[in-house]
């Protein structure tokens, strides 16, 4: 374990699937030692990593994942999910091996980080192109603030 808090944005360049990447960019811009409670934070953005997500969890005991979610809720709805509730809500991935499958595989291999949480925003699947839809864009500032609050606690040395 490397003692850092890992914040991982998952997505692709397409439409609202960019959400995880954009959120990590915003978090990185505002990241200061004070904002992370003096602890160390590692940021990563991944393009549909499939099963290799497990490699990014390998050295981590505290992980915040950020991804687009599609559960039937109105676009822009924020989600905060613990692993237990995760598979049932069908996180979005445009590749065959999505977050839910990676989670199941990690669980089978006893490779789940002790602290893992998914922050997501309900997306508008009809939003094509390379930018976020308006409901998702509006949800972002609150999402980032909530993750920052959580990160301050989790990143503090000695917290697990």
């Amino acid at each position: 374990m490397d003692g850092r808090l890992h914040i991982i944005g998952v997505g692709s360049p397409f439409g609202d699937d960019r959400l995880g990447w954009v959120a990590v960019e915003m978090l990185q811009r505002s990241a200061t030692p004070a904002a992370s409670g003096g602890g160390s934070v590692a940021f990563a953005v991944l393009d549909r990593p499939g099963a290799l997500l497990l490699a990014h969890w390998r050295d981590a005991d505290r992980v915040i994942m950020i991804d687009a979610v599609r559960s039937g809720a109105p676009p822009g709805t924020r989600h905060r999910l613990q692993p237990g509730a995760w598979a049932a809500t069908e996180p979005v991935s445009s590749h065959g091996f999505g977050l839910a499958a990676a989670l199941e595989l990690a669980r089978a291999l006893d490779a789940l980080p002790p602290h893992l949480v998914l922050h997501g925003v309900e997306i508008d699947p009809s939003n094509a192109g390379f930018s976020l839809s308006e409901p998702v864009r509006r949800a972002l500032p609150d999402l980032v603030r909530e993750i920052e609050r959580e990160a301050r606690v989790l990143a503090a040395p000695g917290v697990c």
Partner: protein
Amino acid sequence: MAERRDISIQVPVLARVEGEGALELRIRQGVIEDLKLRIFEPPRMFEKLLEGREYSEVPDMVARICGICPVAYQLSAVQAIESLFGVEPGPWVRAMRRVLYCGEWIQSHSLHLHMLAAPDFFGCASVVELARTHADEVRRGLRLQALGNDIIRLFGARSVHPVGVRVGGFHRAPAAADVHALREQLRAALPEAEALVRWTASFELPADEQEFTSVALRHPGEYPMYQGRLVSDAGVDVSIDRFEEHFTERQVAHSTALHCLHRGRPYLVGPLARLNLNCDRLPGPVRAVLDSTGMRLPCRNMHYSVVARAVEIYFAVHEAWRLLAAYTEPDSPSGEVPIRAGTGFGCTEAPRGTLWHRYDIAADGGIARARIVPPTSQNQARIEADLRQSLQAYGLDRPEAALRQRGEQVIRNYDPCISCATHFLDLRVVRS
């Protein structure tokens, strides 16, 4: 005698293959009346998109054809353009492109073998189920897949749709320290890859010998990957610019991917075809492990493609490790590129099989016409022929679920990448 049934089996969406396809099977009086591997993924029209673009844009554009084998598309493309322009990028570029290609073989083969194919041999529905009983083997597979990605990232800046390759060489050379660290990873992976070969050879593989023609590249001194002549075990041995004389593509109504035939008949490309035609080109340690498994070559049982894939992972780890032994940073990672009008041909061995490119380029360096023949469209007719034979041999009186499972397993033996293979169907308008 078992009752003969009239049944129709539809697998509306094939699981554990790259892209979207379906299988339709109609059995009448105990005989397969109709069998179709339907490919309905929307056409990509990449060849048309390339028209009018500058030659230098091609490597990054064709990398987008596939998220699993972008390097294959890049290297077939630059080879075609460089051969037309008379560019010989030199031994450093040649060796490093081969290393990069090794990364893609390791990544793609490991992904397919562990995530998609291996569950079949243990009666598991998915890799998650397999991981509960074979955790160490799945972990090893993930480590190998990650190693392949690391190699691609080192040369291509990122592992998905890498951007390092250019006509004339690479955009940049990796730092020697990074290469040495990677070589240590490769050294550590050698015993893992060897163990993987032995593991796959221990699988209980169905007995299903079939007659088919294998086609692959062949090189005077190397296991084929980046260069060679096109050969088949039906006696073909031609330079890659003569592909169109021996291989013809045709459209079928049930697939957005073209069917490619060799002298009018289906044929096989991919790991088992390569091994059938080139096992004498494997380096000694890899050949020794292959021999120790007892696998006889040439092999006519497609279920052994899982072993062939493992052998090629071991080969690629060994080859990359060997090629990086004396790594030094070059003065320049690319050379001069004089533009010349005409037609260029490129052909390399993608993880799934032979990938052929042809570009007609104008005097200003613009692409006038492009033609790309991916491995899955070459294998498609063979997959259908295999399904007919293997399902008939398996027993058409078996329960539908068993037939469906066996059908999917047969298809997965070919590791089809449906996204790569889809082309645009001609539109015919009849007006009266």
